[in-house]
């Protein structure tokens, strides 16, 4: 970590001429952006660049390098999953949830994506001076309700207060542990050619619920966040004996980024069908108006499951009425995600650099 400390930091603002210009030693190997942008937190390429250039090589260890939603390891006779996530959202309360439900479900879902049964969470609060006590109380109450619904307990925590203007009301970090009671390796490395790609419901609702509030958009019916715990759905798949190869919850960066991450990690080509991806009418409409692509819009209760083709129908039934088969894993000729478009042509589905930016006209 010495290279990230103190006065020996030297930032290059030169535009790189190729990827090989970078070395992994000091100075900090970011070329275009010597300071952090909002886009570095968007779940897109810039964020992955941060991870690959700064975080992964520095903290380098085998658990981290699996780049899964959580770390999976053994402690004594138990196989455990461990994950953490921080929650910053504006507005704090939105249709279908609030920062408290997100903070619990987000970490519960990261554990579930490891195939774990979530057990215990921590909660760290960073509160801004002046936050109404009633707001904090509502958030804490909703965290407890979400924890009960997900079958976890919040067993440790921390509280800090920052000066007015130095926080956005309330920031929450949660970490969680869960126990793994099966012998499957649920990870991109287990994905195989021929696997079915299942999606558990319609996409884009969480991101558009937040956007609708921020932009003051009103629709015929209010768009509600899809925020929900996913552990029970995953555990039902495991209990039914489905040989799950990989799971991914589709948060920041949406369905597209989640699939691209898996295709890249697995070194396999994933083909999906645009017409198979469910998107509710209001979300589609909001995306059209705002110039956004729902494939990249955040979800908080959606995941994809990679399962053997012969178990796909069974798995889909277990995942619920809204689950769909959206694609299949092809061979190792590329590590791209491609999509058959609505009019029947093929194209690449890429990861965005940063946040989606609406087009001018």
């Amino acid at each position, binding site marked *: 970590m010495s290279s990230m400390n103190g006065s020996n930091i030297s930032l290059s603002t030169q535009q790189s001429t190729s990827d090989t210009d970078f070395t992994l030693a000091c100075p900090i190997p970011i070329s275009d952006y010597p300071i952090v942008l909002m886009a570095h937190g968007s779940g897109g390429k810039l964020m992955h*660049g941060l991870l690959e250039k700064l975080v992964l090589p520095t903290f380098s260890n085998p658990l981290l390098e699996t780049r899964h939603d959580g770390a999976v390891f053994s402690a004594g006779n138990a196989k455990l999953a461990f994950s953490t996530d921080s929650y910053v959202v504006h507005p704090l309360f939105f249709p279908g949830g609030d920062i408290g439900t997100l903070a619990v479900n987000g970490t519960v879902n990261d554990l579930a994506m490891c195939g774990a049964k979530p057990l215990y969470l921590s909660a760290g609060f960073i509160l801004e001076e002046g936050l109404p006590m009633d707001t904090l109380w509502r958030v804490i109450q909703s965290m407890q309700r979400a924890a009960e619904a997900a079958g976890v307990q919040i067993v440790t925590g921390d509280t800090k207060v920052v000066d007015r203007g130095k926080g956005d009301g309330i920031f929450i970090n949660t970490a969680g542990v869960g126990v793994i009671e099966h012998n499957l390796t649920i990870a991109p490395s287990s994905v195989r050619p021929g696997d079915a790609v299942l999606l558990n419901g319609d996409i884009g609702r969480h991101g558009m619920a937040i956007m609708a509030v921020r932009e003051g958009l009103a629709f015929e019916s209010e768009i509600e966040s899809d925020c929900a715990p996913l552990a029970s759905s995953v555990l039902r798949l495991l209990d039914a004996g489905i040989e799950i190869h990989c799971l991914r919850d589709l948060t920041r960066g949406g369905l597209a980024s989640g699939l691209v991450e898996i295709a890249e990690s697995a070194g396999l080509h994933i083909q999906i069908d645009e017409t198979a991806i469910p998107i509710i009418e209001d979300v589609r409409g909001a995306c059209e108006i705002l110039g956004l692509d729902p494939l990249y819009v955040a979800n908080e209760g959606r995941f994809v499951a990679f399962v053997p083709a012969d178990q796909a129908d069974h798995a889909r039934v277990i995942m619920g009425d809204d689950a769909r088969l959206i694609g299949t894993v092809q061979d190792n000729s590329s590590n791209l995600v491609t999509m058959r478009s609505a009019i029947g042509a093929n194209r690449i589905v890429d990861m965005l650099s940063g946040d989606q930016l609406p087009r001018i006209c």
Partner: protein
Amino acid sequence: MKYIDEYRDAKAAKKYAALIAHLVTQPWTLMEVCGGQTHAIVKYGVDELLPESITLLHGPGCPVCVTPVELIDKAVEISSRPDVIFTSFGDMLRVPGTRGDLLSSKAAGGDVRMVYSPLDALKIAQENPHKQVVFFAVGFETTAPANAMAVHQARQRQIENFSILVSHVLVPPAIEAILSSPGNRVQGFLAAGHVCAVVGYTEYEPLAKKYQVPFVVTGFEPVDILQGIYMVVKQLEEGRAEVENQYARCVRREGNLPAQQLVHDVFTIVPRKWRGIGQIPQSGLGLREEYARFDAEKRFGLTDYGVEESSACISGQVLQGMKKPHECPAFGKLCTPEHPLGATMVSTEGACAAYYRYRRPVEQPLITL
């Protein structure tokens, strides 16, 4: 969704593709002018449905792409001033000038805000009387009326802390520049539907006659574009060079007259520099004298910046339809959306960015920094 699903319908798309294949007897080269159409063509794979004898070239109609780099530099400079709130449409924020982009300016402490309308920027100006509020007024004829309305209202309501940084460009002069260029390959045009919704399409009629090329005013959904291509090819095969309207659900021949009047009241036609192409006479809009005090360049006393563009970049040739993105040696290698060398790789509407995003050859790495 009504008015969307019908125009993304696979059966209708295939029907038009078959009609085009049946009609065509020789190779034809067409250009879609608007970046929104380029984006839709590549995103939906419209060109994959076409017979090989039809070549689509991608035109200069991406406002982000053609905004000169020195204007980006000016925007970045204004946005970094402590007394300024700088407002812009979303996709201008990431466009790099020689001194960084607006997102970097925001991260460094500048008050940069994304808005969906210049009228939102005007509202911000009203709410922040002690700040200078600047809107980055870019775009073609499509965005001009709203920008004109913002300035018009600012003058009427005496909101003197509002100004716009203007980089408006016009489509017909750019088309004429392409048609009159000795290397021109374009035999027919899909004209930009939304531009024509504002200005109509009478301006294309003399161009069609003078250069004997057909124009079809075309919409933005895949079936619109296929129908537009069908109509252009039909004219070409029949030896006609007329202006037709595929996008009749939005466009009338005379356009939107009140919008045109407003634009005429606020703006006047000026020469403009186009990124990647250079100066085109009478190709842009600038504020009229009576609105000059709302001109951010004047208000902030910004003089002309001299700027060098990368010599490896062929975006000028791409914008004029002389080359396709993947014919550039830098494409996907030296030049990616994360490290754009030129205009057309910057915006999602830019031809190079669209090709990179949807058509990249498989050996290109997905993650680069």
